[in-house]
């Protein structure tokens, strides 16, 4: 089942996937018919099979109504199927992606996103951050690479024509890569795991960081307290020893002085004969 097909309204369903090659006129999902391809007519077509039905149901779930397109990573309100914050982007012909376009479009292709697919696999780029990157085809390519990890990216994507203005080409590229009926699902599943796990991990990381920094701050504060206490204790001890020494010194001096004074006083009390003859 070609999920990409269904997520882009006008991509043909599995039955047609080998035939179509251009913008399909009949879209399996058009009950979701928000028709974003001006180039292809989107008529409402009943689902071809069970799988399509499932996809339809999924797509029918109202995606982030009113959620601003540029969600910041930590602020994740609504998750779509893939765990990406939804902007419900419908592939459009023109470069300027209508950012408020939210319904019905597949969870997967967020054409406004920065090349998250490759980046976050490579380094810690947050797929939940949506940037106003209008490089739709590039994004799409990257997304494809992301969702089809089993395929050699170059080979699978290589055939996507460089800067298409029409999404049809993109669809073509996408279509061509579905060799195996089950692989898109697998790819989708793995992509899902990647994004939701990643999103959750981000949150956990942030919480852990905060905890960690709080702990560090507390540790520093405790160290400062200990230093304070120790410094004061040292000061008091040194003051004490200093004062004790001074005291001892002073006492000694006092004693000596006392002796001297006593001696002098004693001398004064010694009776001496003075000449007191009246005449």
């Amino acid at each position: 089942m070609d999920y990409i097909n269904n997520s882009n309204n006008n991509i043909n369903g599995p039955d047609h996937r080998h035939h179509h090659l251009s913008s399909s006129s009949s879209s399996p999902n058009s009950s979701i018919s928000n028709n974003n391809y001006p180039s292809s007519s989107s008529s409402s077509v009943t689902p071809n099979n069970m799988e399509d039905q499932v996809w339809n149901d999924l797509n029918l779930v109202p995606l982030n109504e009113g959620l601003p397109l540029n969600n910041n990573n930590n602020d994740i309100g609504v998750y779509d199927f893939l765990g990406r914050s939804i902007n419900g982007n419908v592939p459009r012909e023109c470069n300027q992606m209508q950012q408020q376009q939210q319904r019905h479009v597949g969870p997967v292709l967020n054409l406004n996103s920065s090349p998250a697919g490759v980046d976050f696999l490579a380094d810690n780029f947050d797929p939940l951050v949506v940037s106003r990157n209008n490089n739709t085809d590039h994004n799409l390519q990257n997304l494809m690479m992301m969702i089809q990890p089993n395929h050699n990216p170059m080979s699978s994507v290589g055939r996507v024509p460089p800067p298409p203005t029409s999404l049809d080409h993109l669809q073509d590229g996408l279509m061509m890569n579905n060799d195996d009926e089950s692989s898109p699902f697998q790819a989708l599943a793995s992509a899902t795991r990647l994004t939701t796990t990643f999103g959750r991990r981000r949150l956990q990381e942030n919480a852990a960081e905060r905890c960690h920094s709080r702990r560090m701050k507390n540790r520093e504060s405790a160290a400062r307290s200990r230093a304070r206490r120790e410094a004061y204790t040292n000061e008091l001890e040194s003051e004490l020893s200093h004062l004790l020494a001074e005291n001892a010194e002073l006492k000694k001096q006092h004693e000596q002085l006392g002796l001297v004074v006593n001696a002098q006083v004693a001398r004064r009390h010694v009776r001496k004969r003075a000449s007191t003859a009246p005449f």
Partner: protein
Amino acid sequence: MPRDRDPLVVGRIIGDVVDHFTKSISLSVNYNNREVNNGCELKPSQIVNLPRVDIGGDDLRTFYTLVMVDPDAPSPSDPSLREYLHWLVTDIPATTGASFGQEVICYESPRPSAGIHRFVFVLFRQLGRQTVYPPGWRQNFNTRDFAELYNLGPPVAAVYFNSQRESGSGGRRR
């Protein structure tokens, strides 16, 4: 006292404010007749007014500069304004007190709001009478740079005390 037990080292004054030095002049700071010992705690209400500062030495022709800074502004865990200059007095003749000098930056009562702050008095010997230009603002003062700028050399004495919010630590953060 062995170097590592010196309260100035343990309290990180030597390190945060000045470098190692040898005390050569006596410095006594008194708030309301209460002498300041290194690391003692004073309340903001006790340090509202100018302290009495007496210095030692012997020659009236030697002049000293006194600096009072708070290296823990605005808070010890985040001292972004280190050091905050509270008082700067120059041309203090030896054996006299700060009241005999030139008050370049007037005394500002410390009002610590977050955490327990250290307040440090540092005494430098001047080469001669000199004009000291006041810095444009009190915060982010650097005692080391100041000493270098005016060729004051290493400190000759230092003393510090701690102070925190009047109501003490703990309780609801405002």
